[in-house]
């Protein structure tokens, strides 16, 4: 009897240093939330969501480097029956390969210059190793290999680990650059808006955010520009889905504070007014809520913003995955270097 197919997942060693594991291989959903970074938590959730959709239960291999070949690899193979694919969730400092499997990489915590530099260093040191990968998940990094840019195929995963998210209310943006606490207070006192109200705007630009993205200097400049443009075009709407990871755990404040700080630090002047067409959602909107809108929705993935591409995907009535694939294709056609959704 053939074993059910399984997806293997590995994570950076530094993320494992604060947690105690019970074995080298275990169901990925058992990776403790405490002790790992929010960015990794999001990435694992995203992979778990898709492994569930693909009906390939995910197993986490704590340190694939322990099993480079021979008897150790056989030992591992006995514990992972049915595994054909491995994704190395990477911070850019190392990419783990498991011999005999289809290896992929998922760079998860980029968005700040340091991590990108770490990856560039790794590429410089071991470009051939990265060339052995089947694809990169949710990024479109061009490897520099023997003097040429080599494109590693992109596998795009929709950032919909929370696609079954409850319907969420929207909050209008207010930014007092000199007083973030006051901005937060004001936002919380303005009546929330039902997402169905978005139908009165066209088009809608929907942007999903992560903490690492909000920390990225390049993103901040784009953020200010986008906000300012929408202030002067009240027929359109701009919706920011704030990082959800800490919403469940710590309340909404850290996400909101990070977002407002990012907007404050842009060089663009943001009017100290309540924006009637710029909304904040504490977590992503549900697929149902987006699908119900009878207006074009442009989903801007974070790295399309990062690289400043000017042709975001425009579609409606499709699933989030299709939006993402369209965006990925668009970004690739524009020869962009980075493309991320998570």
């Amino acid at each position, binding site marked *: 009897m053939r074993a059910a197919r399984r997806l293997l997942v590995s994570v950076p060693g530094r993320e494992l240093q604060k947690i105690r594991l019970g*074995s080298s291989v275990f169901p990925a959903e058992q990776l403790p939330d405490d002790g790992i970074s929010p960015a990794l938590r999001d990435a694992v959730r995203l992979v778990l969501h898709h492994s569930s959709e693909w009906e390939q239960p995910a197993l986490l291999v704590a340190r694939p480097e*322990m099993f480079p070949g021979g008897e150790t690899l056989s030992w591992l193979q006995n514990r992972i029956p049915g595994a054909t694919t491995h994704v190395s969730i990477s911070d850019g*400092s*190392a990419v783990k390969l498991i011999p005999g499997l289809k290896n992929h990489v998922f760079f998860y915590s980029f968005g700040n210059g340091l991590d990108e530099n770490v990856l560039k260093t790794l590429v410089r040191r071991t470009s051939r190793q990265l060339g052995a990968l089947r694809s990169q998940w949710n990024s479109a990094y061009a490897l520099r290999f023997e003097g040429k840019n080599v494109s590693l195929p992109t596998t795009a995963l929709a950032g919909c680990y929370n696609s079954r998210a409850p319907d969420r209310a929207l909050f209008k943006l207010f930014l007092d650059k000199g007083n973030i606490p006051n901005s937060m207070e004001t936002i919380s006192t303005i009546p929330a808006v039902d997402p169905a109200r978005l139908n009165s705007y066209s088009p809608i630009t929907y942007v999903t955010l992560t903490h690492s993205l909000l920390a990225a200097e390049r993103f901040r400049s784009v953020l200010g520009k986008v906000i300012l443009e929408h202030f002067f075009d009240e027929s359109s709407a701009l919706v920011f889905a704030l990082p959800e990871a800490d919403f469940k755990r710590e309340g909404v404040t850290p996400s909101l504070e990070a977002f407002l700080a990012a907007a404050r630090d842009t060089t663009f002047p943001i009017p100290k007014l309540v924006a009637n067409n710029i909304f904040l959602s504490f977590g992503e909107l549900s697929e149902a809520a987006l699908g119900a809108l009878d207006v074009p929705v442009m989903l801007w993935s974070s790295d399309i913003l990062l690289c400043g591409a000017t042709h975001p995907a425009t579609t409606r009535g499709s699933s989030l995955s299709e939006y993402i694939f369209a965006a990925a294709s668009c970004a690739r056609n524009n020869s962009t270097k980075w493309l991320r959704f998570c």
Partner: protein
Amino acid sequence: MTNVKPALAIEIGPMLEDIWTGIPVFTRRLISALTQDGRLDLRFVHNCIEIPMDAVRSAMALGAGSFLRERYEQLTMSERRILDLSTPVLYPSTKSNLGGIYAREASTVHDLSTLVMPENHVEANVAYHMDHFEDELESNELTFAISQSTDAALQSAFPNTAGRTQLLYQYVDWPDEFEVLDRNSPTIDIGRYAVVIGTVEPRKNLTLLIDALSHPDIAASEIKFVIIGKRGWLVDSFLQDIPEHLRGRLIFSGFVSDFIKYRLIKAAEFMIFPSMYEGFGIPALEAMSLGKPVMAAMTSSFPEVIGEGGIYFDPFSVTEFAEAFAEIVSPSRAAELAAKALKQSSIFNPPRMAAPVVEWVCSG
């Protein structure tokens, strides 16, 4: 007609260290093995300068590099001879340069932990080992790996090395006098114990042993654990989590001389090697050479080095650790493993270390 032996120069940079552990010892063993083999005309070189043979031999007799370094630094201009660049050169470790200086070069890869476990190293160390590593491999006619495990990791990370690598297995050579000295020394009187290797780095995985102390089967055992090596700062924080009465089961030896290490291993019942990653794992071979079985993590090079001379466990599983422990403390099983350990250790010997090097030199 006289037979001219092919020449080989060994880059003796590692032997200039004051204290010889790890790679300097590997270098010493390599030179001893090739000397015993006798088929090559051995030379010694550092930074292209030939090092007098008597200086290297003296350092080997002493087991330390300070005098050798002094001798090298004090060579007068007239004494300094550039090595003939056509001489094949073997680096016992990574090259300290980009390579490509000599007509035929080979270097030795001990492990790839800086590449696969960068979180356990400071960036400067990673940069030292990895920044020019690809160039180094390119400049090698052959790259030696100290285990199949290291070879597999090397070929995975650098696929272009395929077909250009060779294994270079080391061996253990306790000084002859240790046995007599040990016999004439007072007995180590701390009861039944196992020696444990590794405290300094997180990858040595001592935390597994500390966690396992609370397992009922291990808590009930009388076995103590003598931990050889520096007491790392991580240990103190983990020790706080275990009950006082179990804490007494751990004995930290600190850094010890080879002779003390010999004595501690010889008086132990077995060795525990919980490390998550090793290029070879020479302490396991040291234990087996003294007839001690090894309880080792199922990782990297351990199965090929320890073979049937030990028992393996998942390096993250306290349960598997406890099961392996129960097996190895059983007298009948321990006796069976001890015999296998001794036999396994004997397959790592000087002729085996010398053979691939001689083959490489003679192939040119």
